[in-house]
């Protein structure tokens, strides 16, 4: 993981932090949230971005159970991907639950998973 050609600066640091239970997002002066790497708030253009701790829990806003996956998730399918709001920022992740157990409004905690297909890291949502 230390080979810089394998790293996506900003993104990989965030995943490291989520894995350590210390996830964060970038908060601008207007209180908008976004995810790194960013130099400018995507919502208002503010350039004063501060790393702010992610709320412990998020709320699923929409989800889908993917049956036909891209090759990098072929052996993981079917899996359920969701978009969840964590205060002012949203994350997209794969929910660690059976498809039937996922619905809009459920509470999830951010974590890091590893794909069955290629052993690659992904943002994982663990229902509370």
């Amino acid at each position, binding site marked *: 993981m230390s080979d810089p050609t394998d790293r996506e600066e900003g993104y990989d640091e965030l995943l490291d932090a989520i894995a350590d239970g210390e996830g964060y997002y970038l908060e601008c002066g207007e209180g908008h949230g976004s995810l790194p790497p960013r130099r400018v708030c995507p919502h208002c253009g503010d350039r004063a971005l501060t790393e702010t701790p992610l709320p412990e829990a998020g709320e699923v806003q*929409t989800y*889908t*159970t993917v049956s*036909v*996956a*891209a090759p990098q998730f072929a052996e993981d399918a079917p899996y359920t991907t969701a978009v969840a709001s964590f205060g002012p920022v949203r994350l*997209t992740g794969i929910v660690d639950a059976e498809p039937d157990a996922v619905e809009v409004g459920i509470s999830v905690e951010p974590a890091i998973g590893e794909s069955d297909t290629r052993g690659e890291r*992904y*943002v994982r949502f663990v229902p509370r």
Partner: protein
Amino acid sequence: MAPPRVAGVGTTHFGQIPERTSRDLFAEAGLAALEDAGVPPGDVETLFYGNFMGELAEHQGHQAPLMAEAVGIRAPATRFESACASAGMAVREAVRNVRSGDADVVLVGGAERMTNMGTAGATEGLSIAADDLYEIRAGITFPGAYALMAQAYFEEFGGSREQLAEIAVKNHDNALVNEYAQFQRAITVEQALEAPMVAAPLGLFDACPFTDGASALVLVSEEYAERESLEAPVAIVGTGQGGDNMALQDRRYLARTPATERAAITAFEDAGMGPGDVDAAEVHDCFTIAEVLALEALGFFDYGEGIGAAADGVTTRDGRLPVNVSGGLKAKGHPVGATGAAQLVDMTKLLEGRHPRSDDVQPEVGLAHNAGGTVASAVVHLLEVVA
């Protein structure tokens, strides 16, 4: 400047033709458009060409000069890449180019080769229209992204899978007589509902197919059309473009597409028209839910009201606003980099009264809407019979 005229249109058959190169596909469409226009290749002053994933599909970047050469034109050529809106953006640039007086004759179109990649390869290829870091790495596919929007729509506004199925049934029915369409086959609501899930709540029949194909148009200035005594009664009278955050998670709305709304407002202002002036529309129905999102953002329906339009007969051929009379992306097929041009090919034929569905639908004003990714890019054109 007077709005540019559509002098000629051409398209290949859309379908599964994995062995054909994009240069051969575009040559067929481009030559057909030139022949239809009656414009000599030597008069073409520039080529604007749409293509999304030529690097992945056939290890070919820098495609525009290759396409100019394939059609036999010695003119500068530029490729446009805006995912599934690539050709729509190329058309927009062609319109602006003719309007500005830079060129009198422009060849514009697009091509995509997809089925040689196989289902897994094409699924991966299409997914790169999403945010690689925060969407693809979280398992989002192209159908998956639209499924997230569909689920959000159901949560916010209600609606049913049956209503979505009616959209697929309508578009398949429209394509029955379209000789260029990938599917000339009727389907039923029951078949659509029973089809395997791709990304719930979207099933196989909610999704457009993988398609190989190319489409092209010859746009000319009014002055050139008159000087050369061309039969070119249709003008592109309005153009507009809109954008949004790339990833769904960063959008203000999960079940609305403001990029389309912005593109439509701009195009309507440009043409001095409004949604009520439109007689028929070709909209970007890569998935059934996408047709709903488009109809609402284009201003034809209030938010939350568009999902019943096909089921209620508003958007069928005998309805108030026939939508996707060509069969749409759903049944005509979706060679992604060609689609934005293909929509204008069908709309031009409808406006000229030489479309296989011209007995049923005779518009004076038509709208074409082309979207990229999950509508982080959108482009809208208005076409009118002016001569």
